[in-house]
């Protein structure tokens, strides 16, 4: 997007306001990505912090290929994956605490809330790389081509991870329903 190009141009010229605007523009979406990928939810803020501090240090030499949103989202996902590996703890509680959604009736809300909770548990069981592609594609709206380029994998691999991930989620949810 042209406005992101302008912001990056200003950022590279040392304009602190540009960094501020980039942060404010993408903060909420990036927090979602971190929360969805991380096994330890208390690390959401730390991941955002690390990514933005590193990004800020690149002023004057940052070169943008593709979208800024995609670049930052991938950085968040990579940092979250590293943290997951360091902690060596499977995401047993990932996504189990969701906010009750706004729906038409209390019954609908209860059903949807239960489903999203189960979805959180199912997401937690996915391998990191499959969960990342799903989150990046659905939350950050990145195309498979961009995910593939930024993660250094082929487009087919990105699509496969996504497809396998969705299949596993569906399978997990179906088994939950049956039991």
């Amino acid at each position, binding site marked *: 997007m042209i406005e992101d190009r302008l912001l990056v141009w200003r950022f590279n010229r040392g304009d*602190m306001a540009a960094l501020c605007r980039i942060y404010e523009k993408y903060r909420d979406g990036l927090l979602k990505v971190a929360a969805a990928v991380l096994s330890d939810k208390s690390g959401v803020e730390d991941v*955002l*912090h690390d990514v933005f501090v590193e990004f800020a240090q690149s002023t004057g030499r940052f070169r943008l290929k593709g979208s800024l949103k995609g670049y930052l989202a991938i950085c968040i996902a990579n940092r979250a994956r590293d943290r997951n590996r360091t902690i060596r703890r499977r995401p047993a509680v990932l996504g189990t605490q969701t906010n009750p959604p706004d729906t038409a009736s209390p019954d609908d809300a209860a059903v949807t809330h239960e489903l999203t909770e189960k979805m959180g548990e199912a997401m937690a069981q996915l391998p990191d790389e499959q969960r990342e592609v799903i989150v990046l594609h659905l939350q950050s709206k990145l195309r498979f081509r961009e995910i593939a380029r930024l993660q250094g994998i082929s487009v087919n691999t990105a699509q496969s991870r996504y497809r396998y991930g969705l299949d596993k989620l569906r399978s997990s949810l179906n088994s939950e329903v049956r039991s």
Partner: protein
Amino acid sequence: MSESEKTERLVNAYLANLPTPDGAEVDGKVLAEALTAMQQAKSQRAADTSRITWRTIMTSRAGKLAAAAVIVAAVLSLTVFDGLTRPAWALEDAIEALKDFRAVYLVGAFPGGTAEVWMRANETRTQSTDVVVKGSHGAITWTQDGSTYHYEPSQSIVYHENALTIGMAQWLGPGLLEMLSAAENSQVVRGKDPATGRDRVMLMCSLIDVHGAQSWIIEFDAASKLPVAMKHWPNLDRSGPPAFDAFKIIYYEDLPDSVFDIRIPPQAKHVEKPLTIPEEAAGILSDPHDGISAEGMTQQEATEKVVRALYQAVIDQDLDGLKSISPLCRNWGDEFLHKIIFKPDQDNRIVEIVEVGPICRTGQSKLGPIVAVPTTVRLKNGKKVEEKMIVQFRTLGGQSSCVVHGIYGLPRQIE
């Protein structure tokens, strides 16, 4: 709907309801440190490039934060002293938008770190009274009971000045509008903010004031009319990185007292901050034709005489006399001095010198000794105000004389 689409829908619902930390709470940690990192990276790059030279006003972090604090004062009050003439857009609207706010909060960066600034006006909203500036490295500058304090945690020292040297001499409102409308030689640039697409108006100005050479860019949101960002440089041509870059400005109707209640470790050592003036002021203060002779007088006698002469020139609306006693005034236009110093049609113009007190601070400049002296004056509206003035002594051609450098800190209403 296919099975995949149903699953995608559920994942989207899950992501939409996934709780995340509150953005405002995250900002304090993430954004402040990211900006500090950026500032440090910029400084490192500048240092690495020998072709790029820029002036560092002060070497210590304490000094830089103090500079940032002064800048806040300068930007929000002394802006005035040069720029912003007859702006094509309605400045009145900006002032109208600002008049309901008694407090303001800024976040910005200075060389080596970031700073948060809280400011609150007095009851009559003529100037700021409460100011707190917190640096990212732990240093704090604040005002209390007419004094200014600076706490430097690395040295565990509190520097003290018996004057309000940070804050706004003119609070946001009609008085500020008067100042702005009297100023000259500004540039107004219009544009769009690339992030939001909102129209912005940038005002650029520069001047030499009691703090030395200054220049600013102040960015207004065209729709809300409020200043939303500003940059300050300690030079006239905006060269080099800004000394203070405020990228966020938020206005409040008021702030709780607790914001301004600063507690520091009791073991911190208290040190009186030396009285100084900018080195570049020496040139304009060294004309032997200016000021008054101090031959045969004590410092107190000469100080009282020159300060009384200054205020008498103000009361008499004597422009030449004012410029002779206080040569720094030559940096500003006659119309500006008339409106801002003499204020002929206003209730808050000075009409009487009540008392010139004893010398309260002493220091040294390149030209010789400097002293600060409190003076109580009465305004047309009957109120009494105390202003501290800095007087420069010099020996030129074997003759001792003195001139007034300028005001030391903000005026203080005492009655």
